[in-house]
Structures are given as structure tokens and as C-alpha cells.
């Protein structure tokens, strides 16, 4: 992994899957409280964190994301009671596999953000963006099979 000199200017493309009931509301709160986080985050609203099929994450990477984050209700607070417990296992497995394939594991993350945690949402995004920024463009996953 090279971090080039111009990585400061590098603007990563971040995709954030946010569950409708907590994290999306948290993002909303961050907005209405005028807490800033870069506009590079593309939020995709999903009904529940467990709606996120591992394929969605891979697809996002393939279509140009440099980092993908999944936000849901805190464990125990899922609107559908148990969705995020399933999501937790699924994502753990997917991220572990990406790491095993040699993809930087810092490009993926799961964070639980409630509707009241606007500040946490903004802080999480800022932190995630700067992590991905320092990693640079996501080349590896897009070229796992020497197709580029």
C-alpha cells in the first residue's frame, strides 16, 4: 500500500449504509445541529442494518467507493428487534474475508449510532474519512484478478 504525497488532496468516496430508524435520523440530527462532516459521504438509507446484503458492500467498492461504513441501531435497540445482531455476524465475516484477501481492513467499518447521537455520527464520519484518506484510493479490491 503506497500513500502518495498528494494523499492530502485525495478525496475518498465513502458510502455509508444507514438504517432508517437510528443512524439515518442521527445523520439528520448532525445536519440540523450544523455539525460538519465532508460531503464525500454518500448516505444510502436502508430499512435496517440487516437489509445490507454483503453484496451491497462489494458492489459499492466495485463501483468506486474507497471506504464503506454500515451504521445501525445499537445492539438491543433495533427497530425490528434483532436485525442488527444478524448484520453484526455477517459484516464480521465479510470484513474478515476482505482482510484475508489482503484488502486493507480499515476500509470497512460498522458503527452503531442512535437517533440521538448526531455528534457521534459526525465524529465517526470524520474519523472514517481521514482513515480512508490516509489509505488512498481503493485499488486492490478492484483488481483482485488482474483485470485492470
Amino acid at each position, binding site marked *: 500500500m503506497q500513500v502518495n504525497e498528494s494523499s492530502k488532496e485525495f478525496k475518498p468516496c465513502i458510502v455509508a449504509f444507514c438504517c432508517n430508524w437510528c443512524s439515518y435520523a442521527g445523520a439528520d440530527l448532525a445536519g440540523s445541529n450544523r455539525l460538519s462532516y465532508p460531503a464525500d459521504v454518500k448516505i444510502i438509507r436502508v430499512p435496517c442494518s440487516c437489509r445490507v446484503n454483503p453484496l451491497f458492500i*462489494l458492489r459499492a467498492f466495485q463501483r468506486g467507493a474507497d471506504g464503506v461504513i454500515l451504521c445501525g441501531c445499537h445492539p438491543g435497540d433495533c427497530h425490528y428487534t434483532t436485525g442488527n445482531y444478524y448484520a453484526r455476524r455477517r459484516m464480521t465475516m465479510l470484513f474478515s474475508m476482505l482482510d484475508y484477501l489482503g484488502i486493507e481492513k480499515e476500509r470497512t467499518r460498522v458503527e452503531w449510532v442512535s437517533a440521538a447521537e448526531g455528534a457521534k455520527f459526525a465524529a465517526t464520519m470524520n474519523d472514517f474519512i481521514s482513515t480512508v484518506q490516509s489509505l488512498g484510493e481503493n485499488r486492490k479490491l478492484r483488481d483482485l484478478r488482474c483485470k485492470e
Partner: protein
Amino acid sequence: MQGIIEKVTELLDNGTVDRVLAWKAGEFSYDRTPAVFDKESGLYGLVYDSFCVNNLSKYLIEESKKDGKVLVLMKPCDSYGLNMLIKEHRVDREKIYVLGVPCKCKVSVDKIKATGLTGILDIVEEGNDIKVTTVYGDTTLDRKDVLCDKCMVCKDKVVVVYDEKIESDETAGIEKLDRMAEVEALEAMTPDERFNFWRSQLSKCIRCNACRNVCPICSCTKCVFDNDNTGISSKANVDSFEENMFHIVRAYHVAGRCTDCGECSRVCPQNIPLHLLNRKFIKEMNELYGTYQAGTDAEAKDPLTAFTKEDAEPSVIYNR
């Protein structure tokens, strides 16, 4: 072998079953192909020996849709796949008569060839000797040296689902290998080394789909990779996505359900070690969610359709 033929003949004759799914001798003495026999065709060509490697369980999806009852010869390792098919309602158990057969590990023709032998005319097994006749002369190999990779890490020799079984106490007399050793070796590498390893392996893939087609767990009627209506292949960038992510998607799809039967790696014409992807998932799940062997029974929930409130957070991956 003789006992098996007798049993099968008896069940076919007394009308318990209408067809028999087993292996048939092919052109060479070591060629074994899955085949269906019935009363009309007779059992001519039916064999069961050390070259009968194929997992027959997947064929039951189609066979159990037909009229009448089918008898299947079931090796211990294949029976795990059958249990998964029963669990996932892919086969009709009522229409299957499972005859468990013993296994003393299978011999790999590829490994025999890999010893450098060419011009092979015939391979015969005699006790622990594998006698190879080639155009250049005869050679005898030790059976232990040419066993299938998947047999070196065999789960155990128990047929887990059967109506009747034929027992034998013959064993190959080998030490089982630690099936996670290779996974651990990869884990110990740096991410860049791992990436290079996988990229060189996965780049060899010719997308023949054999690994998917052979797998008793990959049994969807319409595979996501063949379906034009999924996001996978209906948009631009199609090919790059499905080409690039195929192996992750395949491995993930069987995660928690893969019985580690080893068929995918065996059939890959490019010798891609697909079992290393499957076993990574198995290892992680065993460590994080408790030991689980898919296919041991047709009831237990697999790790990805279950949870506990105390499960590890995905951040365990980063903290390693």
C-alpha cells in the same frame, strides 16, 4: 464391493427402490463417473472403489424430483452435503434410500500423474499398493502417497444420514493433517503478501463455474451469476464486478453452510485452492461463534442464521 452389489440388487429386485445412483466405470480402469442404473439397464458397470471420488449428494436434487425411489451410495463425507440438502429442502428425503458405504480414503489420479508418470494405460489397486501400467513399464506406488487432499483432512468415517449402511473397519492408516494449517500460514503473512497470493491464484480462474456446479451447498435453482435481473449483471461494469468478486461471493454464499467436502478445490481445472476461502470462514465462525460442523444433522442452525447478544463486534478484526 461385492456386498454392495448384492445389497443393491436385492433392493432393486424387491421393489424398495426404482433406480440406483452410483458410480460407473469409464473408459479407463480408473475413470469413475456418477451414473444412474435401473432394472432395465441392470447394474452393469457399477463400481465402488478407491477411485469413486465424486460427491453424489447434489445429483439427488434432480433424482428425487423424478417418480419412484432412488437408492444412493453415500460415502461418509458426502453424507454431510446430503444433510444440508435435506435441511434446506432441496431434496425429497422420502424418495431417497440412502445406503451408507465405507470409505478408506480415495486415490487421486491427479496425484498419481503428478509423480511424473506419463503414458498411463492402467491403474489397479491391490491392498495398499497402487500398480500403474504405463507405456514405459510398470510402477508400484504406495497408496498413502497418492490419496486425495480432501481425504487427508477427513472429518471422520461416519455416514451421518442413512437408511442402511454397510460397515467396514478398513482404514487408510494415515495421520490426519490439521486442516487449518494452511489458513494459519496465510493469516501470518502481511496483507500485501496475502493480496499477491490471492491475486495470483484468482487470476487463473477461467470462470468455468465448475466449483459452483459441483457444490452440494451451491444449489440455488437460479444462481445470482446467471440471473440477468440482479444488480450483479444487469448494469454496466457487469463483467468486472462479477469477474472480480466471483470468488468472494461464492465463498460467502456457502459460509456457515459449507461442509468442507473439498469438491470445489478438487474440480477446479486451474487448481485454485478454493478450500482456503471456505476454511477461513469455518475457522472464524468456530472461533467467534462456537464450533460448528455443517451437515452433522439436518436441524442445527448455522452460524449466520443465528446470533447471541454477546457476539463479538466487527471491530475484532481490526484489533488483531
